[in-house]
């Protein structure tokens, strides 16, 4: 009995002890729960949301590119892609066999699909093939019953309906490269394309638009349960070019008759570039869907550099087209008057050095009009010597040479206007006078791009205004557009007499008997154009060769032949357009470049929408010109 009681007492004591212990541990659980759910609640709430909410970007449709009349140059087209969801498909190998019969798959595609199917979760769609033809889409839809889990996924891809014609200007889009990632998640979307060249690259920000986003709730396996919210982005803005597609097409075809050439046509008052072409070109469509290695190698290894836009990236010695700069500088610095003559014996002596005129026998006495017309080298050697490089170089810069024009294209080259400082820095040598003389005929160090030459010409003939080239417009041209104002740009401060004398010389080149481009004059007489030929030497002619007789261009290998250049404008009486043409290694400026420039100018004026020059007046003055 006592035993029992003491046992019961022991039990009671221990039971209470145990119960107390248990109560304490339960309190610990309660405290832990309080800590997790109240103290740390906000942190865990955030983690739970991170778990379940996934933001998906909605890529904006890219802005279209149009020419000045609203013709499409770059558009988005529905691209039908074949995707499959492995978990719905059953036997993947068999399904791929069926697909292969309908829309042929490469072995590489097939292996990629199988690999992705192994790696990704069953409900994640896998891209089987892009760029399905309508025919393939239709056949897949017909066979849909046999192919559960296979779907046609419409996406947008970039098309360039004009193909090669606008390749250099519009550029192209391609997949984002590693170094182009900026942290913008949009760029990391697997299918995203960005502008790599041309306007596509230069106006990337406007064209791209703003990505929308969709917040979705996902479960632990990543499957989307529902959409929680959607933030709409906005589509990329359209871009309107100043380029006239039909003219560009014409220019492209005209240039394609030569091996390698570039041309620019610019409105001398507005600076609108109505055509900017480089030949040979490339089809930008090759890039938007991923270029093949073979195509890429072909483009890259072509010595005519089809990928380069030579109109802004090609730097050429301007040759005689540079003589206008020398003339303007000389007249402005009063180094000569238009009437004063310089005698040309066929060569020019400077100390021990002898510089040759292109005409071995010499031109005799030359005033400015004749020197321009015949492109007499000796006259301009002497002019350059009188002016000096220190006054010539600044004048060139006023005419937009030696620095990028700021055209809305990537990779524009600056050209080169040499100066004493430049030579000291770049060549570690001081300037010598012989170099000034050589610069006088656009040889030596001086380099220009076709675009710069067109702008230079425009500034010469528009009344000396600092026109700046533009490639884009705020909107497409409307009908009955008012004529452009002629005073959009500030004056360069060149005297009207100087400009008139130079224009007179340029008109004579084409329209007077004996002019270097007399062959290209317009015979039907309702229109006159002016211009200046240029032939720039690529190699040095040695004394020995000169004695043996200078080899003719067509005897030389292509890459040693002279560049043929021409700058022109029209109509002579009311200049409206300036053109520059460079035919790489084309030979003579007058025989090769001038006819091209003439054809381009005529076509440009024929297509001139605003008819700034009434046809009647063109006819009236065309007959009464100097001849």
């Amino acid at each position, binding site marked *: 009995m006592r035993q029992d009681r003491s046992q019961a007492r022991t*039990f009671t004591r221990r*039971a209470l002890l145990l119960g107390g212990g248990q109560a304490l541990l339960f309190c610990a659980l309660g405290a*832990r*729960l309080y800590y997790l*759910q109240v103290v740390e*609640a906000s942190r*865990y709430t955030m983690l739970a949301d991170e778990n379940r909410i996934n933001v998906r970007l909605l890529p904006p449709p890219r802005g279209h590119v149009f020419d000045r009349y609203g013709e499409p140059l770059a558009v988005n087209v529905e691209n039908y892609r074949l995707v499959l969801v492995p978990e719905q498909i059953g036997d993947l190998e068999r399904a791929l066999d069926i697909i292969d019969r309908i829309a042929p798959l490469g072995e590489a595609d097939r292996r990629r699909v199988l690999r992705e199917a192994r790696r990704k979760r069953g409900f994640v769609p896998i891209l089987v093939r892009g760029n399905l033809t309508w025919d393939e889409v239709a056949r897949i839809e017909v066979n849909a019953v046999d192919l559960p889990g296979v779907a046609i996924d419409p996406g947008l891809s970039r098309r360039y309906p004009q193909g090669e014609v606008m390749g250099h200007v519009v550029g192209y889009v391609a997949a984002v490269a590693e170094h182009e990632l900026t942290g913008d998640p949009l760029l990391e979307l697997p299918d995203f394309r960005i502008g790599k060249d041309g306007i596509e690259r230069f106006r990337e920000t406007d064209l791209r638009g703003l990505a929308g986003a969709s917040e979705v709730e996902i479960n632990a396996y990543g499957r989307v349960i529902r959409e929680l919210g959607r933030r709409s982005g906005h589509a990329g803005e359209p871009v309107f070019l100043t380029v006239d597609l039909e003219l560009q097409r014409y220019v492209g075809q005209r240039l394609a008759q030569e091996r390698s050439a570039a041309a620019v046509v610019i409105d001398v008052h507005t600076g609108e570039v109505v055509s900017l072409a480089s030949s040979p070109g490339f089809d930008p469509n090759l890039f938007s869907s991923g270029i093949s290695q073979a195509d890429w190698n072909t483009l890259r290894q072509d010595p005519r550099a089809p990928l380069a836009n030579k109109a802004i990236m090609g730097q050429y010695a301007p040759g005689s087209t540079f003589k206008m700069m020398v003339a303007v500088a000389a007249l402005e610095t009063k180094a000569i008057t238009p009437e004063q003559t310089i005698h040309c014996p066929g060569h020019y002596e400077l100390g021990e050095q002898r510089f040759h005129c292109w005409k071995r026998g010499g031109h005799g006495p030359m005033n400015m009009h004749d020197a321009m017309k015949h492109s007499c080298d000796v006259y301009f050697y002497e002019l350059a010597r009188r002016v000096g490089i220190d006054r010539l170089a600044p004048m060139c810069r006023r005419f937009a040479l030696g620095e990028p024009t700021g055209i809305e294209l990537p990779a524009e080259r600056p050209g080169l206007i040499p100066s004493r400082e430049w030579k000291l820095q770049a060549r570690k040598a001081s300037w010598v006078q012989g170099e000034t003389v050589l610069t006088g005929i656009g040889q030596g160090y001086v380099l220009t791009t076709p675009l710069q030459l067109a702008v230079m010409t425009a500034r010469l003939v528009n009344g000396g205004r600092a026109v700046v080239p533009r490639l884009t417009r705020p909107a497409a041209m409307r009908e009955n557009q008012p004529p452009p104002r002629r005073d959009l740009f500030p004056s360069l401060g060149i005297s009207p007499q100087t400009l008139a004398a130079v224009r007179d010389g340029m008109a004579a080149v084409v329209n007077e008997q004996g002019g270097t481009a007399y062959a290209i004059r317009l015979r039907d007489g309702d229109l006159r154009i002016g211009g200046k030929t240029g032939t720039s030497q690529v190699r040095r002619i040695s004394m020995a060769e000169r004695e043996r007789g200078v080899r003719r261009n067509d005897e030389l290998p292509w890459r040693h032949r002279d560049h043929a250049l021409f700058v022109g404008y029209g109509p002579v009486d009311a200049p409206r357009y300036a053109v520059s043409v460079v035919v790489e290694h084309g030979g003579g400026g007058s025989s090769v470049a001038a006819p091209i420039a003439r054809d381009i100018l005529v076509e440009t004026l024929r297509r001139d929408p605003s008819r700034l020059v009434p046809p009647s007046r063109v006819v009236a003055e065309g007959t009464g010109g100097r001849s």
Partner: protein
Amino acid sequence: MSMLERQPRATTPLLLDRIWQISWPLVLLLTAIAGIGFALLYSAAGGSFQPWAQKQMLRFALGLTGLILVALVDLRIWLRLAYVIYAVALVLLVAVEVRGEIGMGAQRWIDVGLLQLQPSEVMKIALVLALARYFHGLDLDDIGRPVLLIVPAALVLAPAALVLKQPDLGTALMLGACGGVMFFIAGVRMWKFAVVLAGLAAMVPVAWEFLRDYQKKRVLTFLNPEADPLGAGYHIIQSKIALGSGGLFGKGYLLGSQTHLNFLPEKQTDFIFTILAEEWGLVGGLVLLGLYMLVILYGILIALRSQNQFGRLLAMGVSSTLFLYAFINCGMVMGLLPVVGVPLALVSFGGTAMLTILFGMGLVMAVYVHRDMELNRQGEIGTD
């Protein structure tokens, strides 16, 4: 507290009396806990009685009927059956072990049609029953003799070893803890516990070597879950996120994102507490913990009220088992204990655990019904 009032010493109560003697508030508490379980299983299934809630309700109804029946059976019969039940449980454990040996993998259950019987769950109650029977036969002086502790120690170690071999570390530890509780309330001297605990502590490095890789990983993960967030630490991290994001009042019934988006696997079994804490918040969690505390308190009071040692030990043992279920499971879900496979008593989906616990509570009820019965060391009515 009416049940603490000393009733006149009775012999065997009549059947009708016994029904009246059943503590209905305790039944109500158990039903409340199970009810929370039904609601959570309904939520876990995405708002459906299938596949879990309905089955669980049927089992509870069955278990509750069993509980009443068990409570009405004379306590002496349970005392006599104690070793038999233990033996049956042990044989079942061995059977599972043998079946596992002959190549059916780590299967821990035997299919008996209605449910997949898990002998390790049954053993938890059977062990309490057997130890209660054993210590009932000893007086305080006997308990002081170490020789007489060999048999109960063997009773604990045999099933623990078998379960450990399955391998099921959680259940093995729980059996060990149950045994420890029984030794403690039977009156074994404190210093003996100290010796055993010290011995166990010394054994830890050795035991570590015997753990399976995944068990080691679980323990290491418990110590630092962030080390492997997508692998072994995934459960515990997601569980804590579910709890923490529930906040004070929860996200609302059926609205738990962690649960319904499947960030928590196995949510209907061992991690069911996370659904409660996520959807009902701290309030919901504390209510459930409170209900458990009330049931355990009831059990302790019944134990204290019992006039026989068998009843005291049995009621206290079963209550402590219930405590261990609740504490280990909650501790694991809250990241206080390593992840071991212990279900949340009466709430987690699972037949055996539900039925065993209700059987255990039936025994507690039987102790209450027969609280005034005085039993001698042989289990007969009367005193020594």
